[in-house]
Structures are given as C-alpha cells and as structure tokens.
C-alpha cells in the first residue's frame, strides 16, 4: 500500500525550512518543537541513541541549543516526545487500514501492510520506534511495551465468530505471542539494515498471524492474495 508523500502526515514529521519566516511566536515555538522531533530521529539514525548528543539534534533541527532547552530538559525527554509522535502516527495508519476492510482476515492483512509501508517510507522513524526505543532506558521501554501490546486487540477480534473448537484451542497468550513474533522479526530486519525490504515480509506475517484462527491453508490463501 503506497503512502502518498506528504499527505496525512502530522506536522511533527514534516519540517519548516530553517531561518526567519516572520511567523507568529507561538507558531514558531510549536514548529521548533516539531523540528526538534524530526531532528532527533535523523540524529539517532546517524549516531544511534547512545551516541546522539544535544548538539547533533539541534544541528539537524537547525535550532539553537537554547531553543532545545526551552522545549525539553534532556535528550531522553525529547526522545519520549518523538517516540509518542511516531507511535501515534503508526497506530493511526494501522487502525485506519484495518477499519477499511469489512472481513477480519483482510483487515489484519491491510493493517500489517500499512505498518510495513510506513516503516519503509520512514526508515529513520522506523529505527527510532522499533529499535532505539529499547536502548533508551526504562521510561521509553514502558511505552514501547504498551505500544506493542496495543496491537493485540486487532488479533483478538479474530476470535469473534470462530467455532467453539477453535476458541477452545486459542490460549490467552496467543495474540501476545503473534504480535511479539511479528515485531521481533521487523526489529531484527531494521537492525540488520534491511528496512527497505520490510514489505516483502507481508505474506509471511499474514500467514503466521492468521494460522491459529483459520488454519494453515486458509491463512496461506489470504497471505498469497495479491
């Protein structure tokens, strides 16, 4: 599913060119924050979380060090803001794609496709939310855990309307394990520098996640639909 460039992006993820623009103070302040958020994503993509300094962030954002401290008290705080922004966007895209389909198996497929498309289109943000969040310490790790768990209900929807035999064999942790397996595969591909190939994982991930509900054959059929 291709992403229309620029359309539907929250302002945080697009950038105002540096320099004077004669804009109202409040707007500029808001926009500086957005630039810092985009800046930390770029800085982390270059240096990793641990290697990123405030100077890297302000240089990518083209704002002064003082401006940075007007918005955030630390690198960690800036990262948390960036993480929340990226995850909100990712969740919004997945949710929208999922809701556009009337049948659950196709909704899962569309949701996974939307996630992969976003990560491929935004490799810096992909790295930030899927890899660096785990390096960034306890505050972000908690957010990461709940963000991953927030995808669980999409799969739980698949229990609806299944036969008693299917329901009996689905264990309480089924969805958690499916989401965890999927996220782990995606993170590892990003770590391996293979973000651009993520969309090729779509059939595998669809078959993997649908199998417990539909059985292998039906899951494979949905996975292989063009």
């Amino acid at each position: 599913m291709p992403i229309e460039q620029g359309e539907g992006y929250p302002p945080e993820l697009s950038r105002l060119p540096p320099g004077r623009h004669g804009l109202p103070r409040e707007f500029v302040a808001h926009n500086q924050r957005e630039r810092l958020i985009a800046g930390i994503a770029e800085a982390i993509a270059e240096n990793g979380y641990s290697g990123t300094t405030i100077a890297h962030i302000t240089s990518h954002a083209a704002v002064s060090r003082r401006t940075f401290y007007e918005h955030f008290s630390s690198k960690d705080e800036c990262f948390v803001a960036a993480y929340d922004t990226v995850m909100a966007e990712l969740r919004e895209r997945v949710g929208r794609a999922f809701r556009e389909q009337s049948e659950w198996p196709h909704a899962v497929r569309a949701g996974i496709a939307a996630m992969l498309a976003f990560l491929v289109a935004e490799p810096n943000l992909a790295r930030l939310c899927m890899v660096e969040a785990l390096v960034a310490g306890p505050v972000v790790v908690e957010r990461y855990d709940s963000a991953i768990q927030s995808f669980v209900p999409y799969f739980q929807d698949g229990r609806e309307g299944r036969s008693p035999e299917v329901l009996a064999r689905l264990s309480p942790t089924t969805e958690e394990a499916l989401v965890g397996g999927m996220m782990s595969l995606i993170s590892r591909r990003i770590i391996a520098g293979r973000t651009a190939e993520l969309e090729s994982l779509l059939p595998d991930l669809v078959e993997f996640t649908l199998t417990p509900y539909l059985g292998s054959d039906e899951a494979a059929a949905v996975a292989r639909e063009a």
Partner: protein
Amino acid sequence: MRPSPGRHRLSREFVAQHQRARIIAALGEESGVKGYRAVTVADIVRRAGIARNTFYENFSSKEACYLTAAEYALEELLDRVITAAERVGSWPARVNAGLAAFLGFVAAEPALARICIVEALAAGPSAADRYERSIQAFVPLLRLGRKVSPHGEALPHTLEETIVGGIFWIVYQRFALQQVGEIESLRGELVEFALTPYVGAEAARRVATTPPCRADRG
C-alpha cells in the same frame, strides 16, 4: 584427584571462575532493578560483593562484562534445551521438552535469562548481534518440524525466527510484569503456539497437554 595435603585454599582458577559467575549474576540482577543502561560498574561491584579491582581484572568494561555474560547465558540455555530435547524421540515431543527446559531455565536462573532475552536489545549494537544469535540458535530445532509437517517447505521462510521471537517476547513481557516466577505455567500455551503452524492446532494441543516428563518415558 585428591587435593595435596595441607592445601585447603581454593585454587586461583576456581576463585576466578566463581568471581566471574558472581559478577555476571550481579549484572543481571542490577539490570533487573534499573535497566541495563543505568547500571554502573559500582552497582555490579556492590551487588557481587567484590573489589572494584577484581571487576577490572575480569572485564575491561560494563559492555565487555555484558557480552561475556550474554555468551555464557545463551550457552547454558541452549545446553539445557538441547539436552532435554534429545531425551525424547519425536519432533513434537522434543519441542515440548525443549520448551519446558527453556522456561525452567528462566525460572531457575532469572538473572541469566534476563541478560540474554531482555537486555540484549537494550545493550547496544554488539548486544543486538548476540540477540540475533540467540534467536538463530533455536531456529534449527524448530525447522526440523518441516519434515513432519504436511506443509513442509511451503511454510513461510521466516516462520521459525518469528516463533522464537514470539516466545522471547512473552518471556520479556513476564519480566516486565514481574511474573517470572509463574513462567513455567506457560509451557502448554507456548508449545501450542510453536507447533500449530507445523502440525495443526489439534495435534499441537494433544502434545501441549502431555507433561514433558511423561513424553520422556513414552
């Protein structure tokens, strides 16, 4: 071999080995308290009850200590899983026994398990490489399932690593929720999760409801 008379002190080598083990356990425990990134050498030294010098005689840095610990933890974990799996015959029974041993290790050695499963992604690029190796280490055991599966090589290429990733995630979550003590109760669910793509849900459930020690004898 009998110790020479009059020699009651432990050999230097034994003490050194023991110290390393204590340092490794201390790193795991401290990571559990504050997260790997925030752990300092001073924390490790205090928890291990050793001198700071002793730490640096064994490791050049926290990172070096982590990498040794991760290597050791993975070796131990793999050794237990393989030993348990080899005791039984069929592939599904091996998965059952292997997962029981896996969870038994996590319950018995939470500090080591934390190092190779939870902290691996938090500890930076070289640790991510260890995490990759941890995942890959279990892939061949699962891949054998393609031989007994009617789907065989038609199963997704990434199936094995995704299953291992899912199991690691569940363990990771139990650490986050501080429910590691009850982790062995997840064996049945995880066996089903791992076997279903290969043998179907019904057969997977039958294996999952068999205690792994019973399968040992049968």
